[in-house]
């Protein structure tokens, strides 16, 4: 039993609103609150993650990173955001203006919808579909359409190459993300996030599913990094080859949206990974150790969730700031000749373990 349950909080808001308002008005107000909360979360996440990336990258590289705006440069990304809003939006001469402006909408839409299904803490989630994982994998890959549109409509050859690379890459790695998640679904027996988390009451799947879960987690991290177009898979925006890739022609706020989407996508991938493999907001529990589990429960579930996500994001940043970039054909070879076959075998392996009841 978790002592920090947000269900009571949301319920109390609901009842207090219902006292003197009609049910439909309550729904509308609740929706506005949710929408506002997610908008805030969205921008806040972007700002924090960009700052974190800069600082972490700096420390990897023996640098100090941003230090000027605020103490330890804490307001640097906010300053950058303001700067980007005040920048002139440029459109190239022969660009397809409608698609050019549409692309940021699509890319934000995909991240926003994916963010909605994140279970942040017990009882704190906006959407809890019974097909949660399917929904997330479907929605998070919508972003590639935005990238393709952005690259194609810019009338820039660098953008075009970047978009084409992105298309082939994201679409391929989508498979591995889905299959590695399925490995755990076999164990959990549900696609719903709340149930998957609940099924990890006695321990996180990454520990309980032993080898196949570990393999699936590794594949998920690789494929997830690739899906967010981050290094070493940042081919669509490989700056040493394509200057800035698919968003070469974007400036000001439109560029900021792509930038933001990349970082929020990273959060989403880390969030899915944390939820499915590391128990989401579920504290660190070990089987029947009642005392130990009780102590762990005292740490609020929000901390558990964001702690795990932060760890996975740090891991992804570690990848980016260590490895060289792959080439497009090597990238696809990695997916089709390594990750996919391993994944298929791994699912069978997992199913066999479940069948035999060998998991913990």
């Amino acid at each position, binding site marked *: 039993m978790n002592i920090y349950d947000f269900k009571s909080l949301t319920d109390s808001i609901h009842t207090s609103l219902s006292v003197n308002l009609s049910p439909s008005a309550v729904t509308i107000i609740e*929706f506005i609150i949710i*929408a506002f909360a*997610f*908008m805030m979360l969205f921008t806040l996440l972007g700002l924090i993650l960009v700052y974190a990336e800069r600082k972490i990258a700096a420390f990897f590289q023996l640098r100090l990173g941003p230090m000027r705006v605020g103490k330890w440069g804490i307001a640097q990304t906010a300053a950058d955001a303001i700067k980007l*809003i*005040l*920048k*002139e*939006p*440029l*459109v*190239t*001469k*022969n660009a397809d203006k409608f698609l050019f*402006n549409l692309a*940021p*909408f699509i890319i*934000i*839409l995909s*991240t*926003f*919808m994916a963010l*909605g299904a994140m279970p942040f803490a017990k009882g704190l989630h*906006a*959407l809890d579909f019974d*097909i949660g994982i*399917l929904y997330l994998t479907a929605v998070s890959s919508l972003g590639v359409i935005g990238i393709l549109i952005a690259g*194609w409509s*810019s*009338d*820039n*050859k*660098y*953008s*075009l190459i970047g978009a*084409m*690379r992105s*298309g*082939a890459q994201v*679409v*391929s790695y989508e*498979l591995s993300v*889905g*299959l590695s998640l*399925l490995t755990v679904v*076999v164990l959990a*027996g549900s*696609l719903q996030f709340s149930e998957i988390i609940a099924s990890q009451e006695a321990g996180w799947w990454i520990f309980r599913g032993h080898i196949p879960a570990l393999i699936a987690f590794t594949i998920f991290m690789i494929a997830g990094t690739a899906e967010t177009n981050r290094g070493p898979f940042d081919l669509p925006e490989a700056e040493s080859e394509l200057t800035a890739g698919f968003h070469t*022609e974007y400036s*000001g*706020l439109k560029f900021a*949206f792509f930038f933001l989407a990349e970082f929020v996508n990273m959060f989403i991938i880390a969030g899915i990974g944390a939820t499915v493999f590391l128990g989401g907001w579920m504290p660190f529990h070990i089987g029947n150790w009642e005392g130990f589990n009780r102590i762990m429960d005292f740490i609020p579930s929000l901390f558990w969730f964001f702690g795990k996500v932060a760890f996975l994001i740090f891991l992804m940043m570690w990848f980016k700031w260590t490895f060289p970039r792959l080439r497009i054909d090597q990238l*696809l*070879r990695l997916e*089709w000749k390594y990750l*996919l076959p391993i994944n*298929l075998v791994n699912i069978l392996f997992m*199913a066999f373990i*479940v*069948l035999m009841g060998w998991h913990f």
Partner: protein
Amino acid sequence: MDKTALILFVISAIAIVGIGMIFSWIVAPKSKNAVKEEPYECGIPTKGTSFIQFRVGYYLFVIIFLIFDVETVFIFPWAVVMKSMGMTAFIEIVIFFVILGLGLLYAWKKNALKWD
């Protein structure tokens, strides 16, 4: 509830981009000139158009993906019920995977997974 919430998310996503773009359009300076509208190609005027017939290799991967993604969708319901169904489900999926694996092997041997 969930469906309406989903629509809510779509609306708020569009709103956040729309409001941002309108706001930026109001506050940002605008000064047009011909050079600014040139596509960036390292400071040199472009040669030829960018709307070209691109190499087919990229699209072929998308086609292979399509095939495999449909298969993955079939695995989703199986994964949910695997635990409760037991042996039958396992045997069925082994057969399914063998066929899928043969498909992958075929594509592999046909060099469809090879770039150029």
